[in-house]
């Protein structure tokens, strides 16, 4: 199987095939022979040469994976051909086009700092969300105009809820 991976904004290719009870993994042409054993809770114990690590895999939104290797988390994306095309088409790579500002965590909207139609600067505060006794100001990712405003003061929001769109 061949996957495309995005690590720190760079694209890499990962080919994988079972081989003699292990996995042959070729990353950008470099070959590893990896012995993998499943552990509980979406984790694997890997042996690659003598190196021994536990890797915990945590799937996020949009095909994002967080992989804990030893003590450090590596965020990455793993896509097959089809998903890679979709991913590229979605334009998420750039700040071109309208940008959504979502609630980064479940909480309560304590202040809305803009109105629909307002012109905003990059980094300008849009909405203040409170969770765990702390207020967090969400800022505009770009200069532009507030084209959608879904945030309502006093309302509870779930993580990922669309609050503002700046175009």
């Amino acid at each position, binding site marked *: 199987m061949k996957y495309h991976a995005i690590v720190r904004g760079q694209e*890499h290719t990962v080919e994988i095939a079972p081989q003699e009870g292990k996995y042959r993994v070729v990353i950008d042409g470099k070959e590893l022979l990896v012995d993998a054993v499943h552990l509980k809770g979406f984790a*694997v114990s890997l042996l690659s040469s003598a190196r021994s690590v536990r890797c915990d895999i945590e799937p996020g939104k949009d095909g994002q994976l967080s992989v804990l290797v030893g003590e450090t988390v590596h965020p990455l994306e793993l896509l097959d051909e089809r998903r890679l095309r979709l991913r590229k088409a979605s334009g998420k790579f750039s700040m071109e086009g309208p940008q959504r500002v979502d609630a980064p965590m479940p909480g309560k909207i304590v202040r809305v700092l803009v109105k629909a139609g307002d012109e905003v600067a990059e980094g300008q505060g849009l909405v203040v969300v409170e969770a765990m006794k702390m207020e967090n100001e969400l800022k505009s990712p770009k200069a532009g105009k507030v084209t959608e405003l879904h945030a309502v003061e006093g309302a509870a929001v779930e993580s990922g809820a669309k609050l503002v769109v700046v175009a």
Partner: protein
Amino acid sequence: MNKILIANRGEIAVRVARTCREMGIRTVAIFSDADRAALHVRCCDEAVRVGPPASRESYLAMDNVIAAARQTGADAIHPGYGFLSENATFARACAKAGLVFIGPPPEAMEEMGEKTRARRKAIEAGVPVVPGQKEPIPEGGEAKAKEFALGIGYPIMLKAAAGGGGKGMRLVEDPKDFDSAYATAQREALSAFNDGRVYIEKAVSRPHHIEIQVFADTHGDAIWLGERECSVQRRHQKVIEETPSAIVTPQLRAEMGRVAVNAAKAVRYVGAGTCEFLVDGHTRNFYFLEMNTRLQVEHPVTELCTGLDLVRWQIEIARGGRLPWTQEDVLKNLRGHAVEARIYAEDPARNFLPSPGTILELRLADGPGVRNDCGVESGSEVPRYYDPMIGKLACFAQTREEAIARLHRALGETVVKGITTNTSYLRGILELEEFRKGDYDTGLLARGADRLLPKAQEGAALTEDEELALAAAAIWQLEQDQKLAAPPVAQEQSAWARAGRLSALRRSR
């Protein structure tokens, strides 16, 4: 005292319940609707709902808490820290309901609870406070104020009379800068608190936040149990605490301890209390800040270095018992070094954004010298309504260097899946050279902020760890893809069987 209601949640409720169990005392938990499935509920023998998620309608609702105690026949209430722990009205309501409040008498709480009153009490008891004006600078009083400033000596601080949090606060190092700083401070104070009044305090240079644990019984005895260095703070919130402090000599410790005990005795204090001091990093002069009339979050480091159980002492003293130790016993028993890290559900990489949610898996550190105080477990929900601290990790060793290495190792073993926590940030703090040296002040985290941000890997080439991460991801994805292609029969197993199968998949060859 046969049954104690624990008027708190999270790790401190679990911690108090553990000591009660060891003492053969039954426990009652209280919970809000957001906490029905919380760990502290099942760590107690009984549990009573006290209201909806918002604290003021549940954990802070005195009537509900006292009703829960009555309903279950509890004869005492342990308030933990936060919530109702420093509320004299609640302590009185307990007494009125015939319940023992495990803490100081309400009078002592009041005398230490109000800042200006506490400062006055401290001065009476001969406890040093930061020299400064007792009243704000009146209109047209600039000239007198400048005289006062010269009298106590520069550097000085200008502080807003009406509020805190750093707003309306200005450091003035030289008399020539007084006027402009005063104008700025007034403006800031006016805008932040709608009250532009400002007063002068002597500036403490390289300030350390160091506190003394005191304990007093109902028989008039009081002792100190050593200090805690709490200068690792982010926005006035403690992050890492240790004991002993690298800058506290045995003489300074004895002197601060004596003063703290005097402060406690001055208000006829009973139980566990903490006197917070600001210590000047250059002169080693110390100044009373305030007294916390309850158990502190960071009490475990004191327990590790004294070998005591402070909650047991609290209960025994509330029962009317005498302090089990004299001050000499403390000196004989203090040993080694302990460091505690607070684990927060927050994302340091996203400006410490809170990260409530479901903990899919929790792996705690273990082994020599490791102590976990955790309010959650695998599967726990971290609600968005309360403090983001989900637990504490404390380590003990004979030397500071070993204790820090141990905490660093233990933080590496600590894995919280499903939400984001600050464990990497905490490890980063332990790696700071300034922290390693031991003589750091409250500015440490602000100065180190850049070095504490997650380090972006340099260069386009993948590191060895990134290669392994990709290999693990590919193996996982390959299996997901194969599973989707597998016949549905494989998917009809119960989750139980599935869990077993997954873990057994390639156990042995």
